[in-house]
């Protein structure tokens, strides 16, 4: 366990963007709260106070998570590749650390550690922004941001999302690691080429789009699988009536059992485990570029 902690710490040393990027995003948001106008928010004040608060929590959080998903993708593509590119793999491999542990530490960094860093940054930002906006007291918005129960619910929601995303996106993360351990150059290109080639070949040979569809479902399907049907009806109701009502309980959307029982989850996880095995074997065998 101790070794794994050192391996994760090393990822922080190498990839300072892990904490610098969320720090910058948070800083910009806080600056906006300090000096920006809150007109946008004010226009939303026709909405009930709880809805404003919720919008606020979700918007800040979603911004962080959007940036994080892009960064994590890049991180996974780069992590094993950069060790080989600068030949430092020869140093890392001189330590009594198995390649399995190394690969797993990078996977855990991408799927758990980085999301938790962004989660913490998003939380800190929300609290500071809420505080600043309340103190500036430009509108009634300020008060709307202090719903302790809402805040707690959003926390649970984000943590639940981190957990389910780690499982749901496992095959994609593992695939990126395989590319990172295998490619001699242009990891980005190599990560896109095989699925693209498959999609084109399928269309050309069979005229179908099964792969493209499956891929799209994997990339976009997490909310559908991780939350129950109530979320969908709530969102569409909100869109239809052009009003935003707050459900009494955000937790009621969470459907962990349904998520775990879903065949898509299980198949994806199994594929992910197989691909992790590939990435480890490649890390063992491919020392240099």
């Amino acid at each position: 366990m101790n070794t794994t902690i050192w391996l994760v710490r090393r990822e922080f040393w190498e990839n300072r963007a892990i904490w610098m990027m969320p720090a910058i995003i948070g800083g910009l948001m806080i600056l906006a709260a300090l000096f920006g106008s809150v007109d946008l928010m004010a226009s939303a004040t026709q909405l009930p106070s709880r809805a404003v608060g919720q919008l606020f929590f979700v918007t800040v959080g979603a911004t962080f998570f959007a940036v994080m998903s892009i960064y994590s993708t890049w991180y996974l593509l780069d992590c094993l590749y950069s060790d080989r590119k600068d030949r430092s793999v020869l140093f890392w491999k001189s330590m009594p650390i198995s390649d399995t542990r190394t690969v797993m530490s990078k996977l855990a960094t991408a799927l758990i550690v980085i999301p938790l860093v962004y989660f913490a940054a998003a939380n800190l930002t929300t609290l500071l922004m809420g505080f600043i906006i309340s103190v500036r007291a430009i509108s009634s918005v300020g008060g709307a941001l202090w719903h302790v129960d809402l805040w707690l619910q959003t926390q649970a929601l984000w943590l639940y999302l981190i957990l389910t995303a780690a499982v749901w996106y496992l095959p994609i993360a593992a695939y990126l690691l395989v590319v990172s351990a295998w490619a001699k150059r242009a990891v980005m290109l190599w990560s896109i080429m095989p699925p693209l080639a498959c999609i084109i070949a399928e269309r050309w040979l069979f005229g179908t789009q099964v792969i493209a569809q499956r891929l799209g479902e994997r990339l976009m399907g997490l909310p559908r699988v991780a939350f129950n049907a109530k979320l969908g009806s709530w969102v569409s109701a909100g869109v239809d009536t052009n009003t935003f009502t707050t459900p009494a309980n955000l937790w009621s959307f969470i459907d962990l059992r349904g998520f775990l029982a879903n065949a898509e989850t299980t198949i994806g996880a199994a594929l992910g485990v197989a691909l992790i095995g590939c990435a480890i074997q490649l890390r063992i065998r491919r020392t240099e570029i």
Partner: protein
Amino acid sequence: MTALIEARDLTKKYGAQLALDRANFSVETGRIVGLIGPNGAGKTSALRAILGLTAYEGRLRVLNREPFRERTELMRDACFIADVAVLPAWLRVDQAIDFVAGVHPRFRRDRAMALLAKTQITGKRRMRELSKGMKTQVHLALTMAIDAKLLVLDEPTLGLDILARRAFYDALVNDYMDETRTILITTHQVEEVENLLTDVLFIDKGRIVLDSSLDDIGTRYAAVAVAADRVEAARAEKPFFERRMLGKVVLYYEQPNLEKLAGFGEVHTPSVADLFVAKLSGAVE
């Protein structure tokens, strides 16, 4: 005494190319062995196989382990510098020390600090800010602070100036080496390591062409500098290599008849560097 490294028919193929061609050798505990060969002879492949960095065919045991399958366990007792300047550019010196101290059970931080104190390098420097020679010094300090049974060095002093090279080899022999340790070293600067080696392995085209202790070289090989008029007679004793030098011809013999050779001129034991040239060029002629 048991062999620390034992290779039987060690073979490594890259596609159709044979980097190691049924190489046989063994290294015993307490020795300082020089693995010497021209570029592309298979030195690096042999070292990579010994360190578990590459798969191979044939039988190979290092510290009683199978390197490729048991690299993690092997690295507790063996350490290596497989190439110069492989410490990543973003790493700080103090981070490197912290990391190795954190993951390596045999690392002695005080020793690394003492070694670094002799240099101009401070802890907050990043590798990208250091010269090639300084990077090598950091890596050597990290490696020599590990209490390992086997130390493998691939061109360890490349990029170091002559003072640093001397200091390194002095430290290696005086501070690091003892009877429980074994060092395997490759270098192009044969003259520089000649005095500290106890054994040499010559490798050429993936095969071991000479496996001898330095002491045995004196009894197994001899060189005679012969005046031009006596060369024909000396050639009758079947030298395996000869070269012209300052109007004389130096002839190299294996299993020499020293009494006879003394009649041709002054007999001496060839240096490792000369023997290397003789052995490898001789095969060509």
